[in-house]
């Protein structure tokens, strides 16, 4: 018995992926340096190792994370799969209870206080959800295309998401959308992702250019572009999904031709709103696709027609939602992001100051502890959500790009590790971890750079705080432990 355990432990250290550990350490080190920069006070100077300062406290969080990681590595790799649903159920209860017991912090009820410590339950929910998702999707006979399995999978994702929304932590809730990347890897049709991308494109283009007119032609550029895209996407989908069908060619030839003709007419002869013609083309296209679907008994044409209808419907309803449904401050945020409103002291203040801080770093940065913008509190949340500003300001372009490349390496490494798992459970969980990290980096850095909306989620290993660091550590080390056990033959399946 003793001997067996000894061998097993030895096996863990040998088969552990040290590259990932190295990346983890490197990111933590960079993160700690950034926190020193962000929380340093020029006035008091101060000892960066003092536990009074956030940089000092972060050392404690890092140390405890190491201990946590070590414990996770020493545990049996089987327990995660075995107890996946238990963790998940426990997490759901915790998430449900949180809003009732948590005090109000800036309008959010997400922090549970236990003695002197407080933690954010949402940070740990990601791990539990990923485990449950992996367990469910790797179960025998699972088929995503079956509507019952599909529904159950979506339920696993959306229940914690909904509970977190109830805590007023919309940012953390949105992270759960990253699991769609996992679903894609496990067989969900790419059309869903494509539809998502298309929806964002319609929305951004439609709103951004909604008020711009096309010269003499009384049509808004936004509408023209979106409807043009709908026609183009539809033809493209027919081309991709329906083989060498002449239908795509017909759509492009007659639909596109008509639009071009009408455009010329409107420009040179009589100016009129081209959008009616384009809507007519869309309608004709849909009717034509339905006719082809019936004639050739191929359902795909019908789905594509549905996509076209949905696209047009989404575009016009999004406009309605933006102007009628959204709260004014949300609308302002969207407008600022799209460059429609310039409001450097209001909604745009954070992003503007973040850009100033990063931009002032230059190629090489101002040097450790020499940044002025972040330390003098021009950038809000400078050691949590906007921590990347400090990297940009003090370490410059090289440092910031380096950090992004480290994250990219971690992501690619995690994909590699996930793909080498012998069992679906490990793979699905691995992709979940990767997706969560990617989503955090995408949104957080994008927000600081003014490319994505301001959604308050932390940058993994950089943002100050025990909860998020522990959450990410658990997420990563559980996967590392599963990966380390990949070569062991399972007792039963």
């Amino acid at each position, binding site marked *: 018995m003793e001997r067996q355990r000894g061998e097993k432990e030895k096996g863990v250290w040998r088969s552990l992926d040290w590259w990932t550990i190295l990346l983890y350490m490197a990111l933590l080190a960079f993160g700690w340096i950034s926190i020193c920069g962000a929380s340093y*006070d*020029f*006035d008091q100077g101060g000892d960066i190792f003092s536990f009074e300062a956030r940089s000092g406290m972060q050392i404690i969080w890092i140390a405890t994370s190491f201990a946590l990681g070590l414990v996770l590595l020493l545990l049996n790799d089987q327990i995660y799969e075995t107890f996946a649903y238990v963790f998940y159920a426990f997490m759901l209860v915790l998430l449900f209870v949180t809003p009732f017991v948590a005090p109000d912090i800036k309008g959010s009820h997400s922090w549970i206080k236990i003695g002197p410590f407080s933690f954010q339950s949402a940070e740990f929910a990601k791990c539990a959800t990923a485990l449950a998702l992996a367990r469910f999707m790797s179960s025998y006979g699972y*088929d995503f*295309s079956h509507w019952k399995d599909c529904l159950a999978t979506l339920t696993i994702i959306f229940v914690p998401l909904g509970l977190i929304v109830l805590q007023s932590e919309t940012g953390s809730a949105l992270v759960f959308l990253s699991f769609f*990347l996992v679903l*894609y*890897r*496990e*067989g969900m*049709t*790419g059309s869903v992702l494509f539809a998502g991308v298309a929806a964002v494109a319609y929305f951004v283009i439609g709103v951004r250019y909604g008020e711009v007119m096309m010269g003499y032609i009384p049509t808004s550029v936004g509408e023209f572009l979106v409807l043009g895209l709908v026609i183009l996407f539809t033809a493209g989908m027919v081309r991709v999904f329906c083989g060498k069908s002449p239908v795509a060619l017909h759509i492009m030839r007659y639909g596109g031709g008509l639009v071009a003709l009408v455009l010329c007419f409107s420009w040179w002869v009589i100016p009129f709103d081209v959008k009616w013609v384009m809507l007519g083309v869309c309608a004709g296209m849909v009717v034509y696709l339905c006719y082809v679907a019936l004639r050739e008994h191929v359902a795909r044409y019908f789905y594509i027609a549905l996509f076209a209808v949905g696209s047009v419907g989404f575009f016009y309803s999004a406009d309605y939602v933006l102007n009628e449904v959204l709260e004014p401050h949300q609308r302002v945020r969207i407008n600022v992001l799209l460059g429609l409103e310039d409001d450097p002291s209001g909604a745009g203040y954070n992003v503007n*100051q973040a*850009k*100033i*801080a*990063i*931009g*002032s*770093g*230059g*190629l090489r940065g101002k040097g450790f502890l020499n940044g*002025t*913008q972040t330390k*003098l*509190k*021009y950038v809000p949340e400078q050691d949590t959500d906007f921590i990347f500003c400090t990297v*940009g*300001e003090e370490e*410059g*372009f090289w440092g*910031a*790009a380096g950090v*992004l*490349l480290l*994250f*990219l390496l971690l*992501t*690619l490494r995690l*994909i590699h590790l*996930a*793909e080498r798992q012998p069992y679906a459970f490990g793979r699905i969980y691995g*992709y979940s971890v*990767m997706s969560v990290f*990617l989503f955090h*980096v*995408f949104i957080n*850095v*994008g927000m600081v*750079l003014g*490319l994505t909306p301001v959604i308050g989620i932390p940058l993994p290993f950089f943002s100050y705080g025990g909860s998020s660091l522990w959450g990410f550590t658990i997420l990563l080390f559980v996967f590392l432990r599963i990966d380390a056990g990949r070569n062991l033959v399972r007792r039963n399946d």
Partner: protein
Amino acid sequence: MAKSKYDLEKRRYVIGAVAVGIVLVYIVRLFTLQVMSDDYKKNADSNALLKRVQYPSRGVITDRHGRLLVYNQPSYDIMVVMSEQEGVDTLDLCESLGITKDFYVRRMAEIKDRRRNPGYSRYTQQLFMSQLSSEEFCVFQEKLFRFHGFYVQRRSIRQYQSPHAALLLGDIGEVSPADVEEDDYYQNGDFIGKQGVERAYEKQLRGEKGTQILLRDARGRIKGRYKGGQLDTKPVPGKNLTLGIDRELQALGERLMEGKLGSIVAIEPATGEVLCMVSAPTYDPRILVGRQRGKNHSKLHHDHLKPLLNRAIMGQFPPGSTFKTTQALTFLQEGIITPETAFPCYGGFICRGLKVGCHAHASPVKLVPAVGTSCNAYFCWGLYYMFGNRKKYKTVQEAMTVWKDYMVSMGFGYKLGVDLPGERRGLIPNAPFYDKAYRGSWNGLTVISISIGQGEVNATPLQIANLGATIANRGYFITPHVVKQIQGETLDTLYTKRRYTMVERRHYETVVQGMRRAVLAGTCRKADIPGIEVCGKTGTAQNRGQDHSVFMGFAPMNDPKIAIAVYVENGGWGADYGVPLGALMMEQYLNGKLSPESEKKAEMYQQRHIDYGTAER
């Protein structure tokens, strides 16, 4: 719809590509933000770096003997930062500053008005009240900690040792928007020389401001020095000036001119240094210091006697008979006359129905007695023969041009270039001037009065004094200047270079003889000072009202130390005011004091006021 396992495995590349795509886009964005554009860097600096100005002390001004004229004295400006000004007990504040609530409200509105205060920002210090004295400040300082957003800036203001030389020394005041526009050294609220020496030597007196670069956080609080003060610069104090002015002489001049309009200018002929520059009426420079400045300035500005006009350099008057010396020199040099030439004078110059009157004296007269007795006829004949000399000059225009060139070479008709702002050029007519005035039909007789310093001829008292210096030097002058020495700097060559006139030295000797004759036996007998060889020339400048009383002279004759011009508006004969005042001034300067009887005389002239009425002048 189910895909093969192999197909699904390929999706890893799609996912990997998404990750790579995101990171690439972000790196490109980082590059554009950090490397392509400089705007963010500038933005960051204006965000976080506060440049606090360290004001240098302004240079001190002393007289030619090192006696203090102008120095600095601490004053306190109250500054306010609007964004920090919260929870201030306004009533308490007003009480401690001794202002009314109305003033407070009005002042705050003024500060916020961007049209009046273009540099306004909620986050930077704005001038609330300027120039509190130490006593006024004391009360406020005790409570300062309670008034959030209020700061004190220690400044220094000018103080004057004596109530004299106000116009010459000038004053300083807050910069105007135009000053800020013109020279980016200045910021709103800075002081700049407004008049006199303070303005002319602003660049030397002001020194160089220093800056302290401080770190300021998002709420505008100071968080220490940027880079440990490495980039800070220390203020460089302004340079001290030594003037050519003699404080005692200036004081006496102002005493003598009390109750009169006019000017006294004295020059050291050898150097061109201005020994005194009196302009009457004048004022006590101390009333233009401190917070009463605006009120007092406005009062002076609206005074009908124009005390803010420096008559010594801005007043343009007919020089009268003092100008005859220039005529004598010109005629001698041009060969129109010799010292032996005599002209008849039977009660004046009578020619073709034109008569210029003269007082009774022997006739005919030669040049020296003509200067001594100030004979009008002699100089009229001179000009008549010069302008009528068709052998030498083809036309009267040509003669006029030659004549004009002589006058200009003696410092008339153009600004002399004194180191004070606002100097006027006087007027020496030229040929085109008369061509225009008389439509080309004129001759020597038409313009005859210019020969006796009347008619169109105008000069500033400084130009008349400079004429005295030129004669004292026998043919050259050095551009008059009030600043004798600038600490650590050499004087502009303009103020060290001799400017020769077109007349030879030997002719000057003749005119000097005439001027000596005037003191001994002519019109200037009152200018005789025992033990000193004084040379002088009176002037009685005709005028619409009472004549102006003028005197121009220098002493001692053979080693001139002082040249002087006295101009008393509506003072009557030259001998009434000009001569005795000039004599007293020369005695004071040459002997260092007045004899007891001279002192009595001085007191008498101090008491003698001229009634100028209340009409706008």
